[in-house]
């Protein structure tokens, strides 16, 4: 049977991809970011998961507002790298796991989580900007992904509680998959940032650190907050943190956070946290 061996929460700011693509590992402005991902990279290299289930958001790249999905699950064998205005990043297409993804679609829909399903669509930085930091293609990706898109762009957004419940439903789906697969769940986005209006550039380090504590010790408290709370505390784009809640919902009660890093160089707070399930 498939098992979930851990989880990763991570920011997905496009400059993370830029720093990787331009090999900024040794640049003092970027070194603290790269260093923060090292324990995650090492853990993944040791534990060798087969699949990463990726709760991420599209940035009006693959999906447009003529039909913007609240939740969408990718079921392809391959996903091209999206062109976001400068041409695709120089990394290989992402590899999917269609059999697991199809099983997840059935499991979710049959327990009334009516997600939409996509295939053969490109994925943007919301998915692969953090991915290259901890699962670098050398030269190809070390494993497969199942992308789960969440609308955090166009209000009304799914509630924080709903995102947590999505994670729980994904957990049941993965654990009922008959093949022996090691799965890690990933939630991307945040932490505090705002990219519109005179309040743009807003950050809240105190809230960010509190969030990093609560996502480990008391995710229930985070599900009781409204989007207005997230936006007031962490900026309009800080609301992306609900994707971390989906990741956390897919982990067990016994999971524990074994690593975190926080770096706020410019406009968005960049954080990564690693959760491990007891063996």
């Amino acid at each position, binding site marked *: 049977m498939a098992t979930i061996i851990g989880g990763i929460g991570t920011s997905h700011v496009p400059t993370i991809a830029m720093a990787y693509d331009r090999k900024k590992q040794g640049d003092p402005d970027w070194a603290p970011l790269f260093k923060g991902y090292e324990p995650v990279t090492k853990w993944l290299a040791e534990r060798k998961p087969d699949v990463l289930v990726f709760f991420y958001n599209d940035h009006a790249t693959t999906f447009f507002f003529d039909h913007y999905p609240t939740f969408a699950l990718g079921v392809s064998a391959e996903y091209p790298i999206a062109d976001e*205005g400068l041409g695709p990043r120089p990394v290989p297409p992402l590899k999917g796991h269609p059999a697991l993804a199809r099983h997840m679609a059935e499991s979710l829909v049959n327990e009334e989580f009516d997600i939409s399903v996509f295939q053969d669509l490109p994925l943007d930085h919301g998915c692969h900007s953090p991915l290259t930091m901890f699962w670098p293609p050398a030269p190809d990706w070390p494993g497969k992904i199942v992308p789960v898109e969440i609308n955090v762009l166009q209000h*009304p957004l799914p509630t924080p509680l709903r995102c947590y419940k999505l994670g729980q439903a994904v957990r049941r789906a993965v654990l009922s998959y008959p093949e022996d697969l090691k799965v890690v769940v990933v939630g991307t986005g945040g932490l505090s940032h705002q990219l519109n209006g005179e309040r743009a550039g807003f950050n809240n380090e105190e809230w960010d650190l509190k969030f990093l504590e609560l996502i480990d010790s008391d995710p229930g408290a985070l599900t009781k907050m409204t989007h207005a709370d997230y936006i007031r505390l962490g900026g309009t784009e800080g609301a992306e943190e609900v994707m971390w809640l989906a990741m956390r919902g897919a982990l067990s009660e016994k999971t524990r956070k074994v690593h975190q890093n926080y770096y706020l160089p410019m406009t968005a707070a960049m954080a990564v946290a690693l959760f491990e399930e007891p063996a």
Partner: protein
Amino acid sequence: MNPQLKGIETLAGTYLFDLERSGRGLRLNRFLHGLTRPAKRALFKEDPEAAFEEAGLAAGERRMVRELDWVALIRYGASFFCLEKLARVKGVSNPEMVSAFRGETLEQFLKTRNVPGAR
């Protein structure tokens, strides 16, 4: 009123991208989103007025895009993430857009940041 957004109206300097704004900005956002396609991008670079015409943009929409009036665009109903596509094509960075939203120069904005070189 969406109960999830109760109290948001008291937050100054924030333009929430909701269905009303999305509806108003749809034509403009479709044009901006189109810049992810090489052919549309090439047309916009070579002949912006022809690209505006093809997209059926209104005069005010054309002006905002032509002048890269980020503040007006976001107030009007552009999605930041669609504006990002325009910014990439025009060689404008996110910190430059953010400083424009704040009514600051890039230099002023960078002075408020922890690591001004990280961009």
